[in-house]
């Protein structure tokens, strides 16, 4: 089978186009931003409650780096901003875990260690 010059040119055009598209899509993507979430509830000093809440919050899509502070009665974690849950959804998880949520905060920057909301 003989490959003509026209066919060779077409192959090159396709390859170059694919390369450009690939590069464009990579560079066009912004670094994934993160939303930090802090949940404050009463009665979290019981380990069954605290780690029960931890278990439930982990099921939120994209949730990671979940920290539970028994001393401060707080849970902090982060999610990709494009998967940021509605406040009502977090509230429901807290309520289903047997707690009454006192405060739920969202932030684009990490919460300071042991930071207690006002």
């Amino acid at each position, binding site marked *: 089978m003989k490959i003509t010059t026209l066919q060779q040119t077409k192959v090159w055009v396709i390859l170059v186009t694919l390369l450009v598209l690939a590069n464009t899509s990579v560079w066009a993507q912004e670094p994934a931003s993160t939303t930090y979430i802090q949940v404050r509830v009463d009665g979290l000093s019981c*380990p069954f409650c605290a780690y029960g809440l931890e278990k439930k919050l982990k099921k939120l899509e994209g949730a990671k780096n979940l920290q539970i502070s028994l001393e401060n009665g707080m849970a902090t974690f982060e999610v990709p901003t494009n998967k940021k849950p509605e406040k009502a959804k977090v509230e429901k998880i807290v309520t289903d875990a047997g707690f009454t949520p006192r405060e739920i905060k969202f932030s684009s920057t990490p919460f300071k260690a042991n930071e207690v909301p006002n």
Partner: protein
Amino acid sequence: MKCLIKRLSLFFVVLLVLAGCQPKPKQWRYIRTIPISGIGPIGIVQAADNLWLSDVDNNRVVTVDKSGSIIQEINAIARPMHIAGTKDELYIPQFGADNVIRWDAEGIHSIAIADTLDAPGGVDVNDDRMAIADFFNHRVLVYAQHQSYSIGGEGHDNGQLYYPTDVKITDSLLYIADAYNNRVEVYNYSGKYVRTIGWQESIKVAAGVEVANNQIFITDFYGNRLLIYDIYGKLLYEFSEYLDKPTDALWANDTLYVANFKGHSLAVFAWQ
């Protein structure tokens, strides 16, 4: 007359000596506290002659010597809670992974459970029986002779459970730490409710239960108490000193070990 007085004196002396020789009834006495720095204990059991503790904060189970130093640790356990021990095995509920695993000298083995657990808080085994406190499902699952059944269900009446955290199996009964109903519930092997223990003592979260020597031991987590009952639920002893958020008790050779979660220690009591 003198002779009579002598004889009477002698009689009273002998009586006094005999009274002194009467064995004192045994009772619980505080002995000491063993610091277990860095460990947040939930469950405590004896297996293979060692004390084993579930260290929930650090996702591990450890064995300690009598000074509280760690001898051995099993790592990467997802929030272990009330563990059970046999001669050479440990049964560990993974609260954070919704399963129960078995550990022996050869390693960790999974246990097939034909049901869906939601945060198992405690497990106990006795011959061919196994019971699991299923925290968020408000029930206890019992596996016996190739059959299984469920005890409890969410509620506050007798025969119902509200966030059970621990279970103990004896030769004829099951004792369940019905944590947020602030009591221990007793069932027979048919799953029938028998009695409630601790309902009069205003317990603030009945976190753990131990049954031994015809006595029931309840750790009152927020009340910082250890309550000891007879098998019919009559309160025998109450300790409030030496405890700091107690989660479990273990009877071993006339010695009682109480795990202090917040105190990072073991309070030791002796039956003497």
